[in-house]
């Protein structure tokens, strides 16, 4: 069952977080933020605040600390944010009224580009570069969402309780690498290689990762075919797969 607060966490900290990488991967996005120096704050009751700091041709997603913001976007509740992500609602700005143009123009363009990659049209996936960016961002979204679900979703918490402390490394051959650290059932995802991992999930290609994330093939088939290799502490991988299944429900 989808919990609105968990979906809001995913939308904020996993979907919008991708803007950090989008501006590195997509030339259009890079151009849009050139010379922009603004920080947007997302404020939802009973949820951690998130800031998107746009500066020096970079976007940084800031969580769990307070920084100055030029624009404050308030939401009545998690559902309000989820509706905005679907394009069915608008936030309530409380600071930065002069910046509304930026929100409706540049920022909207950025999120539209992000949407193109995260909800790709099949034909566009035939383009190699588009496919690469789409799969990379989907990969990040999925594994960042794992942590949100393990930390916040009722069933996710139950699954997380069964997972011992340890580090899981998820990698794509010649592609991105993700690390998930589990400490007392609290999950943290980062985009980095790790030297202290005890469980490993290695995709042989971006193509395989994309197909699994889009449910075009299942993990069992990929493992049998040698397209996905798992090793190390298998219970961690087994339970990670259960969390990934919940991710697909949330992101459907």
């Amino acid at each position, binding site marked *: 069952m989808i919990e609105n607060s968990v979906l809001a966490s995913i939308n904020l900290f996993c979907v919008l977080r991708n803007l950090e990488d989008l501006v590195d991967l997509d030339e259009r996005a890079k151009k849009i933020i050139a010379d922009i120096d603004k920080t947007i704050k997302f404020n939802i009751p009973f949820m951690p605040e998130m800031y998107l700091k746009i500066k020096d041709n970079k976007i940084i997603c800031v969580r769990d600390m307070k920084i100055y913001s030029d624009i404050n976007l308030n939401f009545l509740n998690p559902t309000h944010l989820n509706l905005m992500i679907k394009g069915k609602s608008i936030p309530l700005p409380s600071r930065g009224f002069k910046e509304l143009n930026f929100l409706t123009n540049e920022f909207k363009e950025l999120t539209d580009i992000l949407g193109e990659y995260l909800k790709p049209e099949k034909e566009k996936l035939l383009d190699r570069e588009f496919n690469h960016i789409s799969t990379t961002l989907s990969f990040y979204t999925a594994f960042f969402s794992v942590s949100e679900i393990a930390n916040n979703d009722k069933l996710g918490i139950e699954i997380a309780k069964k997972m011992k402390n340890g580090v899981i490394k998820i990698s794509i051959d010649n592609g991105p690498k993700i690390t998930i650290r589990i400490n007392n059932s609290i999950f943290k995802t980062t985009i980095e290689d790790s030297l202290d991992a005890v469980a490993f999930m290695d995709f042989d290609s971006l193509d395989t990762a994309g197909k699994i994330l889009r449910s075009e093939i299942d993990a069992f*088939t990929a493992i*049998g075919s040698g397209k996905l*290799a798992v*090793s190390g502490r298998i219970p961690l991988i087994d339970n990670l797969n259960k969390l990934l299944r919940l991710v697909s429900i949330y992101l459907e």
Partner: protein
Amino acid sequence: MKTYKYPQSREIFERALKVIPAGVYGHLGPSNGCFIPVSAYPFYAKNAKGAYLWDVDGNRFIDYMCAYGPIITGYNNERVDNAAQKQRQDGDCMLLPSEKMVELAELMVDTVESADWAFFAKNGGDVTNLAILTARAYTNRKKIIKFNGGYHGVVQWTQSLGNPGIIEEDINNIISIDFNDINSFKDTVKKYKGQIACLIATPYHHPAMADNALPKKGYWKEIRDICTNEGIVLIIDDVRCGFRLDVKGSDYYYGFKADLICFCKSLANGYNISALCGQEFLKSYCSDVFYTGSYWLSAVPMAAAIENIKQMVEIDSANIVTKKGIKLTKGLEKVAIENGFNLIITGEPSMWYMRLDNDESGVIHQRWIAECVKRGVFFTSHHNMFINTMLSDEDIDFTLKVADKAFKIIRKENGG
């Protein structure tokens, strides 16, 4: 020492992927079977005899999984096969059961110490589930205690929340506690007084992917006494251990008496049959449970089981596999030490579990197992192994040579 390749296995697997979910599903498959890496393992068998299995590429393996337990008197055991063949000529799946069913039940009652009756099905999960239904029918209670990591099959109540297809309501009445922790059991019984139908447990703790644990001294006696006093049915899931520790049942082996005891794997040396045995006071409750299956009363597996049990009693198979298990595991420990590794062996010798010490992730152990498999010794990295009576001293010597070679390879890989 040559290493194996598996082109035929892969070719068949490619065909399978088109028409079978995951190609090979379940514990025999590359995913649940933890084939790490998959390239080291065969996928399909061609034939088997004694302690050996040949894959479709003609590679021979000493099968230390014994088909995950069923093979105890060796693949294609002549006595068992002849009995099955004779019955096949008379009939197998028929409108009525054959006399073999009664003969087998009588033999089990005579052989298994805690058995006053026997009910037959096909898989272990059929009878663990029947045991639960019988216990609930007898007690009119809902709750079931089981041990964390214990495996009792695949029906809903045996699974965990988060497994695809499992909903909260499926497991609402399942209470999982730690094995060998008597206080946890006492506390649970106190907390849910009058609500617990049964405890279902394996005779010793043999979870996958974790060290196995034998029962602490006096543990089962205390559990038995509490169950008796509280009206809780004590179910022993002897599906995996049954006949490998003692032909009279693993409860007998550990010095107590189960109310219900479940058998499958070794019962008929690979023929498809399982059995729930129980004490007299539960017989009528088992009769009341609506429970049946298309092939559960087929005669061929029953004939095979009869001959297999007779043979196991005659040759004292439990003693044979235990002695072979001790010889093998001692040898493996020694070879490991000679190569600078410490191999931790747990569980009973006839179905031991092993892992390498100082290998936090288990990756080195998985590498070692893979190198053994590629050279004809089929171990697994995540599950207990099994011994059958046909394993010879020469097979053990060969195994130790392969283990030594595999240790040398991983020692080199790890800078040794």
